[in-house]
């Protein structure tokens, strides 16, 4: 007796990715440099010497990223430890003064990380602070850092970390909780872990 398996074609409804007029009609107006947004996680920066560039604190224990490409800043073991999809590695073109950046995604796409190195210090960011709605200086493992977003989104974390007075690490973690099988840790918590790994892999500035 022949075994017949009924094959059916299902009609799968797909939400249309319609984004009409996504980038048109910008309204004139001025950005709010402060905004009523909650502060990001992390301890506030205490009074420390400034680097002489704006209000940016000086960096002690400076690190040198000038000879490190972003995609080499995490080891394969660290990528595994972070449970990132090794095959998701992507190089990103970032605007000057950033060099080529790098991005990775988790296997379920529920979160991703992107980062890059700038050849200018946090002083540049402090001079551009009016570009950001959310601008929260903080400490990241003893280093001056700033959580900064042009439009605040609590699901994500965008942080600039001082590597030296003329070098900055830019990291962001984007969370999409709807794709996660288990609750995701806060984006800034994960970001801090990754930033510490990256900085730990960089040689001291000579």
């Amino acid at each position, binding site marked *: *007796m*022949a*075994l017949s*398996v*009924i094959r*059916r*074609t*299902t*009609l*799968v*409804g*797909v*939400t*249309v*990715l*319609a*984004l*009409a*007029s*996504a*980038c*048109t*009609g*910008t*309204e*004139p*107006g*001025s*950005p709010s440099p402060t905004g009523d947004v909650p502060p990001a996680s992390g301890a506030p920066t205490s009074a420390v010497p400034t680097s002489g560039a704006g209000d940016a604190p000086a960096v002690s224990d400076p690190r040198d990223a000038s000879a490190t490409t972003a995609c080499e800043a995490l080891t394969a073991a660290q990528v595994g430890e972070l449970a990132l999809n090794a095959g998701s590695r*992507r190089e*990103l*073109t*970032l*605007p*000057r*003064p950033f060099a080529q*950046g790098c*991005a990775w*995604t988790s296997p379920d*796409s529920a979160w*991703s990380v992107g980062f*890059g190195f700038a050849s*200018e210090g946090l002083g*540049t960011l402090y001079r*551009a602070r009016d*570009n950001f*709605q959310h601008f929260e200086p903080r400490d990241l493992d003893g280093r001056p850092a700033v959580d*900064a977003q*042009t*439009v605040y*989104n609590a699901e994500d974390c*965008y942080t*600039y970390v001082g590597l030296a007075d003329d070098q*900055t690490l*830019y990291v*962001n973690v*984007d969370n*999409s909780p*709807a*794709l996660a099988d288990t609750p995701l840790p806060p984006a800034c918590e994960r970001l801090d872990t990754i930033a510490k790994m990256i900085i730990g892999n960089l040689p001291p500035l000579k």
Partner: protein
Amino acid sequence: MAGIIHGVEGIWDAAVSAVTRVVERVQYRANQQQQVAEYTQASGERFRIEPADVPQVIADLRSALDKVRDIRTQAQAIAFTPAPGSDEVSRNAVRQIGQMAMGSEGSLKAALDAYEIEIVKTINKLEADLRAYLRTEELNVPPASVWP
């Protein structure tokens, strides 16, 4: 001093060019999405996807999600660069570009956020549909005891 100003202006020009290129790309994609929306509205806003193709469609959507996040990473990095001057024209240019790229409404970032939401919803819907389909298929397979 003039050299410094010239250097900063060069950085700013590069940032503006980068924003413009990204906005043009997103605008192009938005136009394409608009066309897709128009086409699919005529068919009841539903695509017909063969079940065997669903895993690949999900993989493609995950790849698209990566691209959306990457563009947001790139766009956010542009804000790192301050205005080249402290005059009102420079500050106003910064405000205009900032609103266009990363403002809360009608901006590149708003478009990217909307893309992300829709892509995530679509992935979840497809995965749920695929799970339901596979369960149904399993029920349709006769038990091994009746196989010839």
